[in-house]
């Protein structure tokens, strides 16, 4: 399984593969973005949001794009920290692919992003799948931030997880 999950930079030719999960309500449910209904819109996001992103990778399973993972740094006094986000096509859930992608990310992101010392992730208290991914990847649960975030119109409690550059890779 391990060798079958790889990360690479995104290119515009990935639009068809990415659209398969970007247009899936099951996938977008936990994400900040709404389900895509046009490839045009997705292509636009790829051009303006994914390709110029400071750290964004496509997750490939057996060479085919099935998701994406990103680490978005804060600026100024907060530049020692960055937020992890990832998305995976629903038919590939439950196989350890997201966990492998997160581990691969942690292996290189601290070298790739200058000043980075802390990768954090915010997970909905009800998103048990994602909580397991982070725990299996070696993240520490910092705490529950109460009524922290408005997700698609609802105020949610979020669990904050962190991985520090000196934490052991698992």
């Amino acid at each position, binding site marked *: 399984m391990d060798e079958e999950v790889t990360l690479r930079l995104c290119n515009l030719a990935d639009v068809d593969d990415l659209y398969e999960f970007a247009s899936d309500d099951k996938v977008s449910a936990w994400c900040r973005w709404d389900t895509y209904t046009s490839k045009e819109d997705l292509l636009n996001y790829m051009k303006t949001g994914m390709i110029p992103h400071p750290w964004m990778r496509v997750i490939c399973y057996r060479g085919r794009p099935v998701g994406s993972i990103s680490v978005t740094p804060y600026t100024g006094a907060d530049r020692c920290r960055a937020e992890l986000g990832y998305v995976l096509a629903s038919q590939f859930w439950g196989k350890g692919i997201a966990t492998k992608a997160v581990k691969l990310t942690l292996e290189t992101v601290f070298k790739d992003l200058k000043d980075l010392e802390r990768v954090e992730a915010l997970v909905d208290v009800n998103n048990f799948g994602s909580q397991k991914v982070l725990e299996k990847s070696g993240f520490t649960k910092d705490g529950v931030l*109460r009524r922290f975030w408005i997700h698609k119109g609802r105020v949610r409690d979020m669990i904050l997880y962190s991985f520090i550059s000196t934490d052991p890779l698992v």
Partner: protein
Amino acid sequence: MNHDQKHQKPKTPTITLRKFVLSDVDAFMSWAADPRVTRFQRRDPYDDPADALAYITTHILPHPWYRAICINNTPVGSISVKPAAGEDQHRASIGYRLAYDYWGKGIATEALKLTIKAAFEELDHLERLEAIADVDNPASQRVLEKAGFKKEGVLRKYVRLKGESRDMVMFSFLVSDAV
């Protein structure tokens, strides 16, 4: 000697909150120029009142919620509530600073209590107030706890302070926490 009098804690002086005016610059310097106060802040102490005046003009006066903590109408510190960026207007972070000579008298706790009440009344949609305190700043952590904030966790290497990344303790006070 009256036994009760000997063991009574000094009462917290009466404090009020009001908006800053430019003529507060000298009072402002009494904490902003003091390295003991700025130790846990991102900024260095001010040397020049002209810089302080510029800060009051460009940052404090236009700020959505920034107040002077006053004793007899003289500022001895400040407290501010900053709503989160973008769509998360239900959330705001609190910061406060107090002149060194006024530490240890319950003033910051009292200012926080007044601010919590005012912020939930005045800021539309506000549901969550949050504050972070350096792990090496137990005095500030106690102030937040005494004011009713709940500790949510320690955020490792959360912010850079004077060239070093620091662990911070996160606290919150929800509108539903108000007694």
